[in-house]
């Protein structure tokens, strides 16, 4: 174990959340819960990134009173990356939800295993 686990408690939480989301995406039978798991996983990564940009005692990266000293503001890069990432995760979850609707109208179930059983039964 390294020295910084307690100092990095935010990252530790984000790692745990990531794994919870990952497990949900991998294990849940229900598609909707899989999608929630996906969203949790993404949020966890964004939390990780935001923690990386944070510097104790500094302000948000919006210039106040035209003070442009590097000692005043936190690191703006992670925020920018997360903004891009959030858009990506919204688009992906919209796509997954529409796939869910299509699957449900065809097979009347949200369980992927049951769907593949039905497909095998159809015998194609």
């Amino acid at each position: 174990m390294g020295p910084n686990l307690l100092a990095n408690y935010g990252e530790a939480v984000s790692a745990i959340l990531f794994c919870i989301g990952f497990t949900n995406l991998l294990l849940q039978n229900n598609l909707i819960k899989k999608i929630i798991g996906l969203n949790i996983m993404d949020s966890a990564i964004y939390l990780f990134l935001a923690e990386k940009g944070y510097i104790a005692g500094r302000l948000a990266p919006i210039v106040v009173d035209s003070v442009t000293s590097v000692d005043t503001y936190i690191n703006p890069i992670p925020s920018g990356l997360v903004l891009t990432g959030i858009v990506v995760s919204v688009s992906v979850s919209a796509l997954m939800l529409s796939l869910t609707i299509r699957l449900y109208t065809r097979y009347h179930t949200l369980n992927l295993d049951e769907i593949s059983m039905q497909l095998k039964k159809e015998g194609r």
Partner: protein
Amino acid sequence: MNFICNFPFFSILLSLFSGTVCSVLPQRAAKIVNRVVILTIGLLSAILLVYLLSTGEPFIYWMGHFPAPWGNEIRAGVLEAGMALFFCIIMYLSMAGGAHKLPGEVVESKHNLYYILVNLLLSSLLALVYTNDMFTAYVFVEINTISACGLIMIRQVGRTIEAAVRYMIMSLLGSGLLLFGLCIMYDLTGHLLMSNIKESVSLLIATGEYQIPLIVSVALMCIGLCIKSALFPFHAWLPDAYGYSTVSSAAILSSLVSKGYIFLLIKIIYRVIGFDIFNNTRIIDMLFVFGLMGMIFGSLSAIKENDIRRMIAFSSVAQIGYIYMGFGMGTQAGMVASVFHILSHAATKSLLFIAAIGLTDVSGGSRKFIDLTGAAYRSKWAGVAFTVGSLSMVGVPLFSGFISKLLFAQAAVQVEGKMLASLIVLGISTVLNAIYFMKTVIRIYTSTDESSYTSITFKDRKSYALVLLCFIVLNVILGVNSQPIVNMIEQGLAMFD
């Protein structure tokens, strides 16, 4: 700066922009725009390739007004330009080869959307090839994933939608791991541009700081890209996705989409971590083992399969195993073999998918082997093309597959610990390949006494035959004239450093 240096940027923006334009055009115009754009980008890449070969120097192109650690960049070398050219050729041929099947497979009103997806897929592939920035790579990986998913489920039968869901789940797991690895890497180095990360990484290695996080981040990125490119244990979505989507989609997906991710992995290995540092980690052993397993189990599943397109799809799993085996050898020769196999597999697999559709068309649309008996007599060009593809996959001289197997064998001999394993598995896999491909070829050339096919016209389409001919020529060029291409790959890999 020479005007030709603008070409990579032009090709990415052109394909992005044409995607937007296709959304408002009528259907026929969208088709023409799509074709013209692919051809134009191919032409631009060819000119760029010639220019780069003459100068012998890669160049960096600023995306914006700011230099290296601040702005965003793209970078072009011989390998990148060559890959872009090759991707355009394969994409054009795949689109042309499946064009006559499109009206039957996709609802009339959704053709526009199909062309949008193809254009955006091309742009994302080009961006993955050219980019010099890790986060840009992540964004375009997502575009690639979503548009590939669209290509799978645009033919809306139950199987494709189920396959699309499985594909999305696997890919999203992959992107999550990739992004996490990326974030850890950013935390360690403070940069997002590949060249700057590499400097910082070599500094970190020299000082011995942060060794464990570094290895973990590299491993996470590798696993993410492996999952996305359907390496053996993660291939569950692949057979349905390739087997039931439209013809062009299957050809494009199998030959280009997974190759885009693999090319990104190559870039990460060379330009982010550094080849030597990567080879000193345990990760290459993992890639090696999974590659070997994929080669055998993919072929075994293909033998069991009773459906021609699913068989070809399973064969893809085996071929991706070959590529990762080359990575796992950890030598320059193995890498060259892998890159050559990317080209050869892309050319062959799209040929096989497009030929298979010709065979199934003349067999009443059935894809079961029993119905394919004698199909090659009914559709000559498809039969010949399928045979060429099969021979190339098995590794018969004169075709591209032979060269890549030869390169793999040569590379394996140079590696001490892994020589025996890779040679044995290469042999077994070749035999297994021969079993299922030759079985199919013999089946399609067996004449039948049945007479149930009178309702089908036996005429070959001219454009379809032309596409198949182009593919055959491409395969033979890769197989006969391989030395310049191998030299080019070596030159391109050397430019990566």
